[in-house]
């Protein structure tokens, strides 16, 4: 009898999730991750020509994944702040992983060689990966640069905990009084609820 109950529940769950998947396919296929979703790992080439995956980071508690690029003034405005985030949180278990999602055919300054140049100029302390073939950013649902996804490493995968902007002032770091990414990572480190889980920002549209 108990087995039957479990079976019914299982069938029900399958039925509901089948429906959900169907719905996702119809309406949300291009929208990417929502809070709580499991983020895909990847194997992308870093500016040092080595391949980088999230699974390489055995000791990490999570990741600050930032889709960013060279050509976008909004990304450039945040470069110093991205370096600061990495310096601040890498040692605490949340390294920055930067990914350039743009197709260099659309923006030649976003080519792999130009990424190396920019990373050297600015002294990036974090991996700056090239989304070759533009395959990873659509899975995340990144629409623009910079676009941040904070992931928490758990037994069941890397869960999306925050999606959005770095802070609330792209022009002036000193004037930003809502530091969304910092607040979110600090909350995760303390095991507290993240105060703001999603934010919106103007950014440069990603060109595949």
């Amino acid at each position, binding site marked *: 009898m108990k087995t039957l109950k479990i079976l019914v529940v299982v069938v029900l769950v399958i039925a509901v999730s089948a429906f959900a998947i169907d719905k996702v396919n119809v309406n949300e296929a291009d929208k990417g991750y929502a809070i709580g979703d499991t983020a895909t790992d990847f194997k992308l080439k870093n500016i040092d020509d080595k391949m980088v995956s999230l699974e390489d980071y055995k000791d990490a508690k999570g990741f600050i994944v930032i889709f960013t690029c060279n050509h976008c003034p909004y990304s450039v405005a945040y470069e110093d702040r991205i370096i600061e985030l990495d310096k601040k949180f890498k040692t605490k278990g949340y390294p920055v992983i930067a990914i350039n999602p743009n197709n260099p055919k659309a923006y030649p300054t976003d080519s792999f060689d130009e990424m190396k140049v920019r990373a050297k100029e600015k002294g990036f302390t974090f991996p700056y990966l090239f989304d070759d073939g533009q395959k990873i950013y659509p899975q995340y649902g990144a*629409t623009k640069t910079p676009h941040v996804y904070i992931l928490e490493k758990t037994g069941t995968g890397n869960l999306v905990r925050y999606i959005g902007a770095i802070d609330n002032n792209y*022009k002036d770091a000193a004037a930003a009084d809502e530091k969304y990414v910092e607040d979110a990572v600090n909350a995760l480190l303390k095991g507290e609820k993240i105060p703001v889980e999603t934010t*919106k920002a*103007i950014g*440069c549209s990603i060109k595949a």
Partner: protein
Amino acid sequence: MRKLILYIGLAVFLSNCKGEQQIAIEASNVFSDKGVEIPVYDFENFEHLLNINDGKTRVINFWATWCKPCVAELPYFELINSRYPNKEVEVILVSLDLPNHVESKLIPFVKKQRIQSKIVLLDDPDANTWIPKVNENWSGSIPATIIYKGNTSNFYERSFTYDELERELKKIL
């Protein structure tokens, strides 16, 4: 010589269709160079441009000089602006260029392309607050366009061809 004229308290008056109420839109700054004038608004002031009820259809396009797909579709907005009479349709190009790029990038671009449509600069860094006020479904990527008349308004987070843009305009006109 490049000059920056500060019109603090400059007010543009807009009236509704009956002319009973007037709304003051205050530009926080006006960039003026070689015959090009670009007023700068924070969102609170800019928002009035999304709510004018004078019987005219407005095509509001969010763009920036660094945004390639935006620049690619600008000629279509210009064409709408020139083909439809001013009494019926007004095109407003809302630049999201950074203020420190206005003199070095935006104004030279506007002059070179000889843009005739009205251009304003939206300068409000707290985008998370104002993006949902433009449209709650907008992710913040550009190009994005609003076509509205009175209380009828459509929002598009996409690029247009001329035909597509005109088709959408005619739905509202």
